[in-house]
């Protein structure tokens, strides 16, 4: 209870230097007595304890996920909060701290993060990236692990010997329908057709393996092969065979499905690979599900030392372009070459001004956003004010009932109203054209100009009750004697309204008009639900419509179709700057108004 007086106390003691020490101690004692009785102290300890427990839990979790920066932030914040609430010299901070913490989390952090995103290529557009480089490299390699064409699937058992994992595979019948592996038939100088040697593999069914003497031999279907990770297959003939497939072999342990599941990261392609021949390009046996093997090979190989990717088939080398993707000397990106997030500086901002595709629509949308926000505020305010004045007239009867009706639009959720309006304004089937206007085909929402008018009309319907309520309150606060005095001086009603009531009204209402402007500037619900920005401007490569406002355009850039979070974040920052500037200027002007009083 005594917090007010202690706060004054606290501020007073800073001003008086010579008695500072004594007063400080006194203040501390008062603060102690006022705010920290034994009961409150216990509550305080419990609350801070809970906070600390939560923080420790968060820190441990973040530690486990190796999120060092956030962990540090939580740690520092918790220490500061503890110090604030247990120290006796930090009274003002005790009141400010919770607000500041939430301000930082929900406002400052969001802003800083948006600014950061706006300087990156984050997004799924060409040239964009969604994760870090390491991930992009892995994904590109994964994309380029391919089954060697024409090879059959091998029935396999995953086996273990002395800690080494391997495959017990049975050579299957050749694939019936598929042609033999891309056999290159070359005509030699004598006119005879010869088959290029490394491609004879699998041309006659069975498999080619390199034997212990280093010779490539062909083994028929049904042969049982055993090999371990990174090594070559060997033919064995003492395996136990069920239904034509090897199920176990002496000297090796066959893994059960459960064991496979528990060790899946060691087994799954491309981890466990057993080769057939010396020639690596021929592919190795790998498995994706632990039950079937396939002959697969990596077409793109990444070299960490040189930071390049090489297509082993074509020999093309791809290097880091510095823009978040790999690129060859001729400007080609590898097949399935994923991008990663990099900083692009102010590119996104520069783009919004210089890129012709973006500039035109952005300008049109910006102008319309201003028009929309300004007219929305103006129309709703004047309609609300007019109704409020009407309601103030003592001759008006049954005010209670009218007032309920007036408030109704305000009581419905705005997105619901917008949807209902969208249906009512349907050109052929909508209630307005079909029933009210007897079948006229007015394109309320499909004609670029009329759609804008419709948006304003619906927003007027949605917004005037708010202004009506505000103006009623504000009008009542204008003292009657001022009006009387004016009447006595011979002023006409219009002059009284214009010169006396309106300025006095604006003193109270102006800040609300500014906030209403800021709200309508970002009135996403209405646009999204009523027109979704349409009708479309038909700009190539940039999906915007004639009734799109900045925020709905940002939504489209970020979340509809190909996403470009970087550009959307840059737009958001531009909106912030605009709304902020307008608000600051307008609030300064209102200060001038206040001097009227």
């Amino acid at each position, binding site marked *: 209870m005594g917090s007010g007086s202690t706060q004054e106390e606290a501020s007073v003691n800073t001003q008086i230097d010579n008695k500072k020490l004594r007063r400080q101690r006194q203040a501390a004692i008062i603060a102690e007595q006022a705010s920290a009785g034994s009961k409150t102290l216990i509550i305080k300890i419990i609350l801070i304890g809970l906070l600390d427990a939560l923080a420790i839990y968060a820190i441990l979790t973040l530690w486990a996920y190796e999120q060092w920066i956030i962990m540090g932030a939580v740690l520092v914040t918790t220490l500061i909060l503890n110090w604030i609430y247990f120290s006796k010299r930090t009274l003002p901070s005790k009141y400010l701290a919770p607000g500041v913490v939430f301000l930082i989390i929900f406002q400052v952090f969001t802003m800083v993060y948006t600014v950061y995103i706006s300087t990156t290529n984050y997004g799924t557009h060409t040239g964009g990236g969604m994760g870090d480089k390491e991930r992009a490299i892995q*994904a590109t390699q994964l994309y380029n692990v391919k089954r060697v064409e024409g090879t059959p699937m091998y029935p396999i058992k995953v086996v273990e010997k002395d800690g080494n994992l391997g495959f017990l595979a049975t050579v299957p019948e050749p694939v019936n329908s598929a042609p033999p592996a891309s056999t290159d038939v070359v005509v030699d100088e004598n006119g005879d057709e010869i088959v290029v040697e490394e491609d004879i593999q699998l041309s006659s069914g069975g498999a080619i393996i390199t034997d212990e003497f280093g010779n490539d031999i062909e083994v028929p279907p049904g042969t049982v092969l055993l090999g371990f990770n990174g090594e070559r297959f060997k033919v064995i003939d003492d395996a136990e065979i069920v239904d034509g497939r090897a199920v176990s072999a002496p000297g090796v342990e066959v893994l059960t499905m459960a064991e496979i*599941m528990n060790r899946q990261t060691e087994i799954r392609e491309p981890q466990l690979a057993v080769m057939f021949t010396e020639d690596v390009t021929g592919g190795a046996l790998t498995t994706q*599900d632990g039950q*079937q093997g396939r002959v697969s090979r990596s077409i793109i190989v990444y070299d960490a030392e040189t930071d390049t990717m090489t297509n082993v088939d074509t020999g093309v080398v791809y290097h880091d372009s510095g823009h978040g993707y790999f690129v060859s000397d001729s400007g080609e990106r590898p097949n399935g070459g994923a991008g990663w997030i990099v900083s692009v500086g102010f590119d996104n901002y520069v783009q919004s001004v210089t890129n012709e595709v973006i500039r035109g629509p952005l300008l049109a949308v910006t102008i319309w956003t201003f028009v929309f926000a300004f007219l929305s505020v103006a129309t709703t305010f004047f309609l609300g004010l007019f109704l409020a004045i009407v309601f103030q007239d003592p001759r008006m009867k049954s005010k209670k009932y009218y007032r309920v009706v007036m408030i109704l639009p305000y009581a419905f959720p705005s997105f619901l109203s917008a949807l209902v309006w969208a249906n009512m304004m349907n050109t052929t089937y909508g209630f307005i054209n079909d029933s009210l206007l007897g079948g006229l085909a007015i394109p309320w929402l*499909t004609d670029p100009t009329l759609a804008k008018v419709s948006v304003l009309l619906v927003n007027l319907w949605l917004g005037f009750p708010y202004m009506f309520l505000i103006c009623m309150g504000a009008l009542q606060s204008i003292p009657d004697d001022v009006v009387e005095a004016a009447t006595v001086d011979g002023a006409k009603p219009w002059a009284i309204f214009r010169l006396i009531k309106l300025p006095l009204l604006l003193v109270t209402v102006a800040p609300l008009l500014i906030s209403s402007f800021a709200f309508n500037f970002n009135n996403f619900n209405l646009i999204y639900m009523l027109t979704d920005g349409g009708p479309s401007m038909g700009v*190539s490569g940039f999906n915007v419509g004639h009734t799109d406002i900045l925020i709905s355009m940002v939504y489209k850039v970020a979340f509809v179709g*190909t*996403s470009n979070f970087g550009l959307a974040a840059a737009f958001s920052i531009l909106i912030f700057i605009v709304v902020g500037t307008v608000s600051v200027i307008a609030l300064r002007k209102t200060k001038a108004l206040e001097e009227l009083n």
Partner: protein
Amino acid sequence: MKVKMKSALGVGAVVASSLLVLSGCSSDNGAESPSPEPTQATDLCAPDANAEPVDGKLTIWVDVERVEAIKPATECYTKSRGVEVEVVGKSNDDIRADFIQQSPQGTGPDIVMGAHDWVGELTKAAVIAPIELGDTKAGFSETAIKASTWDGQIYMLPYAVENIAVIRNADIIPEAATSYDDMIKKGQDAGLEKPFVVQQGTAGDPYHLYPFQTAFDAPVFGSTEDGAYNPADLKMGSEGGFKFAEWLGKQGAAGHINTDLSGDIALEQFQKGEAAFWLTGPWNVNNATNGGAINVAIDLIPSPTDKVAAPFAGVKGFYLNANESANRLAATDFLVNYLGSEQVQTELYEAGNVLPALTAAADKAAASSEIIAGFQKVGAEAQPMPALPEMAAVWDFWGVAEAEILNGGNPKDVWTKLIADINSALGN
């Protein structure tokens, strides 16, 4: 193909169809299922004899409306493999964007359910991994495999195939229409002013108009040798495309196709009996029968020319997260050996009433329901929707241009601009 919906889609039908499945009856037209079924005897869900506790846990994101349908399959997997499976229901609107954002951060699921036309965008964002279907590949319908393939590799385990067809009010029009004009005529003879409805919007809806476009021999793209779409060959820009545009303009002027007609309004018109032909997908069959009050039949799409009007096919399936490697083997095992099995695909059909992607299961489903059989028949000619990442832009232009033509725009001019816009969006 006429059928009383109340009995066909009721509980009775499901019981009947499962009895059919259990007794191994083939349909009365005697069609043999193409793939042999030697392994059918073993129950997939039987617990593994030497089961041990398994550490891993699979997380699957599915469309929130399919959670119940997928549960039996996941429970089956847990029973026999000992791997826990967590099914997370996600709103169909968010699932793709959430997956693209979360997968690279390492917080995505192991498996995500989606539509085949996401594959271009998902591979471009590098969030999905290829799946080796191995020998099970042959069991799937050609459309399903074609749709799941991207750059020569399969990325999706297909689960259901969907396409639009004409739902006819059999109470008003007892016989199928032979052509588009015949459909309008039949309807008008029955006293209906606008007998045909198809969902459109202010921004058009090219998906629902595509069958008519193909009838003018103007598919969106030509094909490469291996059957994939070739974006460099924009077939829409051929002479047929312009003929289609002209035809579209006439339909707009006559009011048979109207951009003001949303899906809701189409439903209303059909239920009220003011329209007797509704070009829509299987997802609207229950709505169309109005709870069994209307007898409906599924017809081939009446063509405005002498060519077949073939719709797009949409294939639903499951993708593998490329950034979640801890459980990828189990995830692949679950997809290929469980979700791809005839047993599970049949179960999914029974729970979700969508045409299975596995041919054997699809034939059983079609034998048990004339509605499913009707859609399957229409889908025989269907081509999968293109999956290029640039399609989002293409759809936009396409829809807006068609809407403009329907509302009186000069077909030739608008179509010419459309082709130019699409070519620039595709970088041709």
